[in-house]
Every structure is written in structure tokens, then in C-alpha cells.
């Protein structure tokens, strides 16, 4: 009986690990080069685009990769439309009818702009991926929900603000976020820079949930106990770079932490690939100045553990850094 239970747990654990590493044996270079070869193709004949992107590819995962890569490297974020939508949604927040009317008006605009200018907001990205995938006979769904970023830490009362995709490959569902994978919008210069982030392709659901929470919890792709919305709101803040280096994030479990003076805090992560430990550091910001510290670092089997002791009372923003890149942020209130 116990054995059965263990094997069940093992199977569940395997289920959870639905991610890019399932396709380690597949070389995506062929799919990626197809996406590159058809760069700039217009969107008037989506079937032809899909056929072109499938040329010579034998597996669904490769065909999906080519589609996803094409969308991520050809569709720009439309910052003006994003702002307009955000403003209107905020204004009509209390009035669902007005929100609906605005949505209907916007919808037409979004699709027209997407086809004509290849510019869109998240929902357009997700739609594009879904449409091309369905033309290639790959089951793909649009997932609406909450997306958390450093400039938008969400609150309980917030409305859903983000859209991404779930895709079924070899009878298993996977998650991906074409919007965030495509690049970075600079809010000051209003420019969008294509900067493909492979970490959002078939991401480990355990990592994905730290900044993506779907309205329909089945798209968490968790077996067994699913994290609650509250857990998501309280989760640490991850940056895009986290998806390039981390497989999962273990501790601290929360963004806001309260510790006692002289308490040692552990930061634990599973890495995707080997990282040299002298590149890992923390930035501790007390509000007036920040300093780089190198905590005790242990890496065993790509399991990274950092330990840091807070020796002064105060309120700190703590950033995990790998090289020059921000991976995650936490706050610590250190009490005497």
C-alpha cells in the first residue's frame, strides 16, 4: 500500500515537471532557423505562414517551437494601446457593461493592428500563437490571468491583466508566455526592443506560478494541491532573467519577510544549468544606499543555497544577482 502511495507521489511529481526539459533530446535549431527564414512575412495568409513554418519539421514540439519563435521575434508590443487599455479599464472598473463595450471596440482594433502593423498587446500575442498552432493542428489554449512584474506588484482587488498560452504536446499540457518572451518595453523612451527570452517556453509550472496566476486554476498545471491566489500575491518577485537560469524557486517563499536581528536566512533554488558560484551575490538596499554582499554559497547538483545573516535592524530590499542580472527580489524587515 505504501509502495503504491509512493509511486503515486512519484508519478504526480513527474507530472508537475512538464517543461522544456521533456524535449531535451530535440534540437530546436531547425525550428528556430525556419522562424528566422520567414521573418517579416505578413499576416494576410496565416495558413501559408503556418505551412512555411512547418516545412520539414516532423514533431509537434518542433512545429510549435517554430510558430512560437516566429511570433516572439516578429510581433511588437504596442505601448500606446497598452496604456489606453489600462486607462480605460481602470476608469470602467466598476462598470462591467462599459468595460465590455470598450473591450468590444478595442478587440476589432487589436486584430486589425496586429495583422496590418504586427503590433499588439498580450492577448494579441496569445491569439496569434493559438491561431497558428490550431492551423498546424496543435491543441493550444489562451489563458487569462494575472501577471506580476516589478512595476506592477498586484493586489487582491486588481483585475486580471495578462494573457499567455497552454499547449498540448505528446498528450501533456505545457505553459508558455510569448509576450514576455518577445522583449522589453521601455516605458520612458516608448521603444520596444526584441530580446527573446527562452525561459518562457514550456516553463516549469512551479516557476511560472510565481508571476503568472490563471483565472481558471486548471491552467496552473499543478497536480494535487494548487497554490492559492493569496500565495501568488505573496510570492517573491521574479525577473525575466530568473527564467533563463532557475528551474525552480524554493525559498524564501514570500516577498515580504520579517526576521529577528542576527537571524540567518536561507535562499534556495534549483538551477537550470551550472553557474559559477563567484558570480552569485545579493544586493542589500536599506533605502539610502545599496551594497553588494557575497553570502555563503553552496551548489550541489545544481541546487543552489545561499545563507545570509542580518545583523542590523532595518527594512531592506534584497535582490538576488547572477552576474550583472537581477534574478529575484524580497524585502526583509529586521527587528531587534
Amino acid at each position, binding site marked *: 500500500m505504501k509502495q503504491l502511495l509512493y509511486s503515486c507521489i512519484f508519478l504526480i511529481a513527474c507530472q508537475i515537471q512538464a517543461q522544456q526539459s521533456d524535449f531535451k533530446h530535440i534540437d530546436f535549431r531547425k525550428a528556430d532557423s525556419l522562424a528566422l527564414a520567414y521573418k517579416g512575412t505578413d*499576416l494576410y495568409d*496565416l495558413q501559408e505562414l503556418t505551412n512555411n513554418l512547418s516545412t520539414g519539421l516532423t514533431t509537434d514540439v518542433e512545429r510549435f517551437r517554430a510558430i512560437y519563435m516566429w511570433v516572439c521575434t516578429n510581433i511588437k508590443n504596442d505601448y500606446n494601446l497598452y496604456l489606453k487599455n489600462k486607462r480605460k479599464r481602470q476608469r470602467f472598473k466598476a462598470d462591467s457593461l462599459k468595460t465590455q463595450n470598450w473591450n468590444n471596440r478595442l478587440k476589432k482594433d487589436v486584430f486589425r493592428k496586429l*495583422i496590418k502593423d504586427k503590433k499588439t498587446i498580450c492577448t494579441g500575442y496569445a491569439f496569434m500563437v493559438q491561431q497558428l498552432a490550431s492551423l498546424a493542428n496543435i491543441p493550444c489554449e489562451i489563458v487569462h490571468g494575472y501577471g506580476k512584474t*516589478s512595476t506592477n506588484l498586484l493586489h487582491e482587488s486588481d483585475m486580471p491583466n495578462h494573457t499567455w498560452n497552454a499547449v498540448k504536446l505528446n498528450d501533456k499540457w505545457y505553459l508558455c508566455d510569448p509576450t514576455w518572451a518577445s522583449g*522589453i518595453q521601455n516605458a520612458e523612451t516608448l521603444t520596444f526592443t526584441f530580446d527573446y527570452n527562452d525561459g518562457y517556453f514550456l516553463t516549469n509550472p512551479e516557476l511560472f506560478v510565481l508571476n503568472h496566476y490563471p483565472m481558471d486554476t486548471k491552467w496552473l498545471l499543478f497536480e494535487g494541491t494548487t497554490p492559492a491566489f493569496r500565495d501568488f500575491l505573496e510570492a517573491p518577485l521574479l525577473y*525575466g532573467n530568473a527564467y533563463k537560469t532557475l528551474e525552480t524557486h524554493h525559498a524564501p517563499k514570500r516577498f515580504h519577510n520579517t526576521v529577528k536581528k542576527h537571524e540567518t536566512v536561507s535562499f534556495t533554488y534549483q538551477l537550470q544549468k551550472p553557474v559559477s558560484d563567484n558570480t552569485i551575490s545579493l544586493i542589500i538596499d536599506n533605502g539610502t544606499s545599496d551594497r553588494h554582499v557575497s553570502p555563503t554559497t553552496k551548489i550541489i547538483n545544481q541546487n543552489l543555497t545561499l545563507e545570509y545573516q542580518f545583523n542590523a535592524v532595518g527594512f531592506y530590499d534584497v535582490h538576488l544577482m547572477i552576474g550583472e542580472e537581477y534574478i529575484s527580489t524580497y524585502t526583509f524587515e529586521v527587528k531587534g
Partner: protein
Amino acid sequence: MKTTKPMSQKKNGLKKPETEKKPLMKKNYHWPFDLDTQSAKKTISFLSIIVMTFFFSSNLLAQNNTGTEVKGIVSDENGPVDQVTITLKGTDTRTITDKKGMFTFPQALKENDVLVFSHLGYHTQEIKIDKNAPFIEVELASETVQMLGALQSDKPYKSKRKK
């Protein structure tokens, strides 16, 4: 013998006006031109019936192969929709609607062929071809979807502090 007969009769039929004009030259004629006109007429009409039957039946067959030309218009709740892709299910044959939402499918279609109408932002619709209704009117339902957008940001977080 029976098979060669009708074929030769036909030749006779063609030459008939000539033989009537110059009856005196009959002695120069050889078989099969010396057959009597009565039986020749009979076989010719029989032959033509056969030829006609073949002609029509083959015509019918041809029509079965080519099917009917299908035209139509695609609209949504606000009017015609252009750029809708119309694909013959299971094939690569397709066309798109023009500015007025009109299309003519490039290949003639058979009964029970299925056309797939797809456009970004609308539910994909499948229509079965009915031979008796070659003009199709399709109304696409737009996807009920919320338009959302969250920006990815690489800006490091900074707590707001009370001074």
C-alpha cells in the same frame, strides 16, 4: 462482321449525297457503298443514339468530378469581414475574402465537402457544402475575450519608504 458493319455504314452515310447525284457511276462502287439506304438509315440512327448516350453520360460524370462553384459572403455583427481564410478541410486549397467580404472558392466543390472559415479574433466555423445552395452566407462570431496587456519589466524593484 457485325461490329465492322455499323462503322462502315457511317462512311456510307457521309457519302450519301454524292451517290445520289451520280447514280450512273454506281458500277464503280465497291462494298460497303452498295448497301441499300433503308438499313443504312436505321443503323445510323442507332449509332447516333449510342454516341449521344455516351456523350451525355460522360458529361454527367464530368460534372460529378468538377462539382459546383461555390461563392459566398462572410460577415460579423457589424458587416462584411475581409481577410477571412477559407480552406477546404483536409487540403491546402484556400482563398481569402475581399474587402466586401466576398469570395469565390478556387476549386469546384462536391456535396459534403467542408469549408473552414478562420480569422484572427473569431471562432473558426465549418460549413458543409450543399449542392443546391452554392452561395454561402457565413456570420462569424467574435471570440469573447478580454483584451489584456501586462508589460514585462526588468526594472529593479524599489520599496516606497516613509520618510
